[in-house]
């Protein structure tokens, strides 16, 4: 049943900017990002938290934004794929995905990149197997993953410890 017009005010930081919004308690974080903030880089590929296309960072941890209510993100700091560029320059991870042909249709890519950001923050020099496990919460139907693994590895090699 609809919750009618009952809304709650939330305030959070998204890609370094303070934002506020009135949301229904049931509004998913992903819908808040996409529909209220027009950050459509965060995609929705399933309804069971399997595909990871909606992955964002919340206070530095990767979360699936389709599995969280926007109200749960109140007071937190969110980074989406749109927040990775610095001064108009691509992050190492973004660069690596292009360099290693780690994407085809591009739909899973933002989530894959955000999971990679978290993985490399936790483990700056992962083995191939650690990479495969690290991105196993994200599904890709196009690449067969080999080039994504190569991209993550390349990002790790070129990052010099900077997880971005």
């Amino acid at each position, binding site marked *: 049943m609809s919750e009618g017009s009952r809304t709650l005010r939330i305030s959070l930081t998204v890609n370094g900017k303070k934002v506020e919004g009135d949301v229904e308690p*049931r509004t998913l974080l992903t819908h808040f990002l996409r529909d209220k903030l027009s950050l459509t880089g965060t995609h929705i590929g399933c309804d069971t938290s399997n595909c990871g296309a909606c992955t964002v960072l919340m206070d530095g941890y990767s979360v699936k934004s389709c599995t969280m209510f926007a109200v749960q993100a109140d007071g937190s700091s969110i980074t989406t*794929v749109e927040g990775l560029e610095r001064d108009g320059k691509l992050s190492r991870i973004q660069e690596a995905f*292009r360099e290693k042909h780690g994407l085809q249709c591009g739909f899973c890519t933002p989530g894959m990149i955000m999971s990679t950001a978290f993985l490399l923050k936790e483990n700056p020099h992962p083995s*191939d197997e650690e*990479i495969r496990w690290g991105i*196993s919460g994200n*599904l890709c*139907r196009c690449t067969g993953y080999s*080039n994504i693994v190569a991209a993550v590895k390349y990002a790790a090699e070129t990052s010099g410890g900077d997880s971005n």
Partner: protein
Amino acid sequence: MKPGQVEILESEEHGVAYSGKSIKRREDQRMITGHGQYTEDISLPGTLYASFVRSDYAHAKIIEVDFKNALKLPGVIGILTGKDLEGKLNQIPTAWNIPGSDLHVPRYSAIAVDKVRYAGDPVAVVIAESPYIAEDAAEMVSVKYEPLDPVLDMEKAEDRSSPLVYEDVPGNRAFLWKLDTGNVEDTFRTADIVVKQRIVNQRLQPASMETRGAIAEYNSGTGITTVWMTTQNPHVHRFLLSVILGIPEHRLRVIAPDVGGGFGSKISCLGPEAVICYLTGHYGRPVKWNETRRENFLATTHGRDHIQYVEMAARRDGTVLGIRAKVFANMGAFLSTAAPGVPTILFGLILPGQYRIKAIGCEVHGILTNTMAVDAYRGAGRPEASFIVERMMDILASELKMDPAELRRKNFIPASEFPHAVPTGLVYDSGNYVQALDKAMQAIGYHDLRKEQEKLRKEGKLVGIGISSYIEVSGLGPSKVVRSTGFGLGLWESATVRVHPTGKVSVFTGGNPHGQGEETTFAQLAADELQVPIEDVEVFHGDTGMIPFGMGTYGSRTTVVAGGAIAISCRKIVDKARKIAAHLLGVPEIDILFEGGKFHPAGDMDHFRTMADVALAAYGAGGDEVPDGMEPGLENTSFFDPENFVYPFGTHICYVEVDPETYKIRIKRYVAVDDCGKQINPMIVEGQIHGGIAQGLAQALYEESVFDSTGTLLTASLSDYAMPTAVEMPSIESYFTETPSPHNPIGVKGVGEAGTIAAPSAVVNAVMDALSPLGIRHIDMPLKPEKIWKAVMASKQKAE
């Protein structure tokens, strides 16, 4: 050579600069920054949202649809049932009406009227101010059904006792398609040896990461309806939607923005997109709909789903004489757009594989059942064909105690016999099958691996080697041929190449890439043909409002046919530009050479005009002009209709180990040798191979659609449908050979489906080889440990 490296054949007459190089994709910038624009990303002011009420029953009469309460929910604008749309929307058409098959195309409506025919069939559509409200209201709609027994078992569906999916389709048989090269009975009667096997090619869910969706807007000022939708073929969708909706084609504009994968599932013209186009006109506001993943699995077309009784006939010396199959092909609850052609034309005609097999027989029963419709899924018919050919080759080899590689080699069509007419009527364009096999065997170290296998077997290990020498018919296709098979359109492709006054180039392609990188590939191609910097070329696709009618992307056709059209347009532009350059330089046209980006008189490099100089003159700008009698401008539109299909091929070899306690399969190595003719962008080609193998390997080991006894799809979420993650996928060792196709201007063959066709039999052959010491001959896909365990138990019981 290292994996992935390619020997590049350079075309002398064009002085290749970009083709053959792994240029990074220009698509990537927007996608890695979150600025891709997929259908669901598009918002328009005042949009209404649609949600479909879908049947929980696979087969039931609709008694009553009660939406009184739902309609009272604040924010609900309207609710329409199938009855409300009667007379407003025409039935969903089928475009591939295969001849000589007693084809019954049942009447199927966008929203069910009297009866639902699969679990997920739409019963009503709710229109509301927000997607949340639309879904709330959809749940409040109460539908009273009278359940009927569902038709689920293809092999029993033709019995008199079976319920009927449609009253007017007797025996639930949509068609019976037969192929007989005339010598089949004799061949099988007189052969030294005939091997037989029942093979199930299971149903799969295409599962593109982006589900289907549409947003439509009717403009009452212009009378034009524009729909942005997830489509592989926007012009075909416009054509079919126009038929369903009665909106004239020129007042309907279909736009494919970025499309998040399709794999065939975004070819079909299904009901919801038509309903959304209708609703925007009805309500005078934009209307948007996006599938949930559950809806996508329930109600977007599925793939494969054959039961095949296969026989292969041979001489004692290993000469293969014939292959024949009786096939039950599940069509699901209606005949989707291309569905009848998939298990027939795209399956039966390619049954010779890479071999000189003279007798080919095939009988395909297209069966309607109470399940979602089955249509093209990556490979579409060809994986189902290649799998039985390659499985039977291994079963035969085992029966004859021959090495499977040598059995293949013995039967290959030799490189000297191309073009080669096979008995099914196809003419293979070019090939060198021995070369690909040898390269794959060398890459994996085949003979050493056999020795290693022997050693490991003695230690009790279950290791196996599987070969798949596949062929596909792709680059669909010569219009005359495809029309003779009953396809409702030609399969040519269009291109417009426009050189602007400043020499910059816009390419408009009727092919519609949705992840395969042709914005880059086609820029490479056009830049080389026109000898301009690649940065000066932009590629546009997907918008029926600005692109000539195009047939779209499927059947590994985009680079072959759309690329061919672009090459032809570019060459016509160069011809015209040469005339203009000659005029500007004041020398005869015959003396003008075009090289290094310059039109110049032979032997005189100091006087020249570039494409940009010529373009300026072509538009009458800069004080220059075209010769008398010539039309101004510098652009060309061409429609390329290839004279033949193309026939990519290769050999994949897989090495596996099966855990003797858990029966878990580990892929130790996977070597792929593929030949897709000339390569424009080897990086992209290899990416296509990787992705195709991933889906083929997923079919071999993990994925299957599972229905319960009531026809409910149990694999309707990504929690239940076993799509592999990175952990399940091995590294691929990819190599290539390059045998150009003579049937298109650029010598290319398709590559999008090759991996999906090759991988299932490579993997299954390897696992069966591993299990052969246990007396197991065949297990149907997916090779789940549980199934292997059962087969081992059964084999042990038999031995006792």
